[in-house]
């Protein structure tokens, strides 16, 4: 089977998974006790008629399955309805915030890959060297340290004491400005540290395992330069076991962004999610949960494709 056919097959398999994700998202949110109307009327004295009217307005009087279909019909057109707490379209609310979180997430992921992969390679190749020892210490600390603590620590050191980074997010200009990118670096590092620590160790152990194999001796026996042996032969096989875990890190980066956005008062969707949960703003919660679910599913799809690209045995 060619790579194209494998990709096609894998994409088709993703469709039912996506449908499942919408059901799960809708179901989980709908089944949590209390609906938005309860929340709206919690501090007011309203008559049962008004309450009933409100329920009809939000379609909450219909059977759950019908509510789901209504919602799904909107979802496929990127229409998640209006926010309950401030009446604006959910899509609009999310689109305001999404670029920031995307910026932070992709920076975190880049920081992770750029540091973890080369360091893992060097640590494996020069086992026991200073770099190897340092990476080991970094990994232990990086995996153990909680994000909120690391975030506050970095803010204290680099923003408060050293004044290298701004303490607050730039207030205007949007996500794609140099100021914003600079500000995003600290939260990105905060989120990326755990993933970096994990991937670095994984890359190292995977490299060590591959370096021991016969094909490496064979490549050397062919007279290839050491650079080619490592970067061409060993690296590709080592990455096979790393890509899957790297994809899972996308989920950790997304979930980590919730805490980190609050620590850094960062205007992304993590904070929107926390606020919406507090307000029981169901349409927004549903949209965000689905968005995160889809992101994780797509990351896995990408990982599978990458996996098949790296390891031809998967394709056949």
């Amino acid at each position, binding site marked *: 089977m060619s790579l194209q056919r494998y990709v096609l097959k894998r994409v088709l398999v993703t469709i039912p998974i996506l449908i499942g994700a919408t059901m799960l998202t809708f179901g989980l949110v709908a089944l949590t006790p209390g609906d938005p109307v309860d929340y709206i009327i919690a501090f007011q004295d309203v008559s049962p008629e008004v309450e009933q009217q409100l329920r009809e307005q939000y379609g909450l009087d219909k059977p759950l399955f019908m509510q789901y279909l209504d919602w799904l019909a909107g979802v496929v057109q990127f229409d998640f309805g209006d926010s309950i707490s401030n009446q604006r379209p959910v899509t609009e609310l999310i689109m305001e915030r999404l670029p920031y979180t995307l910026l932070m997430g992709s920076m975190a992921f880049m920081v992770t890959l750029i540091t973890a992969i080369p360091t893992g390679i060097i640590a494996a190749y020069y086992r026991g060297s200073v770099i190897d020892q340092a990476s080991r210490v970094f990994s232990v600390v990086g995996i153990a340290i909680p994000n909120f603590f690391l975030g506050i620590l970095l803010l204290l050191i680099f923003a408060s004491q050293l004044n290298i980074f701004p303490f607050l997010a730039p207030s205007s200009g949007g996500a794609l400005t140099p100021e914003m990118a600079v500000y995003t670096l600290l939260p990105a590092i905060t989120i990326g540290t755990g993933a970096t620590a994990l991937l670095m160790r994984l890359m190292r152990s995977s490299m060590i395992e591959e370096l021991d194999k016969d094909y490496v001796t064979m490549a*050397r026996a062919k*007279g290839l330069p050491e650079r080619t042996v490592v970067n061409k032969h060993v690296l590709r096989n080592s990455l*096979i076991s790393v890509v899957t875990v790297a994809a899972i890190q996308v989920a950790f980066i997304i979930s980590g962004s919730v805490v980190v956005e609050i620590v850094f008062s960062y205007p992304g969707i993590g904070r929107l999610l926390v606020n919406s949960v507090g307000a029981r703003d169901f349409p927004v919660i549903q949209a965000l949960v689905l968005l995160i679910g889809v992101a994780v599913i797509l990351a896995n799809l990408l990982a599978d494709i990458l996996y098949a690209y790296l390891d031809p045995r998967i394709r056949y």
Partner: protein
Amino acid sequence: MAMLEVEDLNVRFYTEDGVVKATNDLSYQIEAGERFGIVGESGAGKSVTSLSLLRLIDSPGVIESGEIRFKGQNLLELSDEEMRQIRGNEISMIFQDAETALNPAYTVGEQIAEAVRYHLDMDEEEARERSIELLEDVGIPDAAERYSDYPHQFSGGMQQRAVIAMALSCDPDLILADEPTTALDVTIEAQILTLLEEIAEKFDTAIQFITHDLGVVAEFCDRVMVMYAGHPVEIGTVEEIYYDPQHPYTVGLMSSIPRIGDDSERLQTIPGRMPDLIEMPPGCNFHPRCPYAEEICTQLSPELVDVETGQEAAPDDRNQHAAACLAHTGELAGSLDYEVTVRDELEATATDGSGTTEGEIDE
């Protein structure tokens, strides 16, 4: 001057348990176009010897001393870059297990072509053409299509053919074959041996052939070195080693050749095990297992000597039959009184097709 001259090679592995003396003052020579067999039990240092020739001994191993002269040039004195120009180009290697020797992530063709591009300075297209020719040479049908196959799409025998194609790719003068047929079944083994024979003939390539299988040696090699605990105990022509073995260890090995059609009773192995290469027995390393061992054998370590004259062996003498046993220097009181009975089993085992020797130790 022989093409390859190994002199007093000492390879050590510095392990946690101690220093493994993998080869000990190992000396031998291989002539251009010659087929040189190395036999010996597992752990005798055969693979280490091969890897040393390419300077591929990895930490914790080191080539501690000795010389490896290839066409007069001491390989141990070359720079890494100069050494790379020799690897795969003038000296190449065939591995025991082709399946693990091939990188699963690249096509078979690419793995041949990369060495061709590197050593012969060819561009993509030329290297591709040459690689396809090589695949044809080693008997892979539809070579042009199979070029883009991945190793897992090849059968075991085809994988070994591909590895042989790789070894041949830059017209080497010496191929180091480390048990190239052990992983294969008997029919495929015969095919691969025939292929190697044709190749050696056609390209006039010398082959250092490592094996456990004395039957294969008989069929394939001109001269043989028998190794025990990291050094040679006997060197001679195939005929001498088979019909007139001069070292008790060789005799033991001969009687342990498993042969199709034999009763299992006669398949005797040498009692005991090879010594731990960290702490070797003093004197003759073989004495704990040797039926002829005397007091002197625990004190004096035998040199490799000409079995006729008892004079120190001259490595450059192709016709010399040498063995390392005190019996040949007159220091042993008794003599090696075993009888060698040769039974030609040509008719009995048509699949094997080689004459075999049977040595028996009777005391």
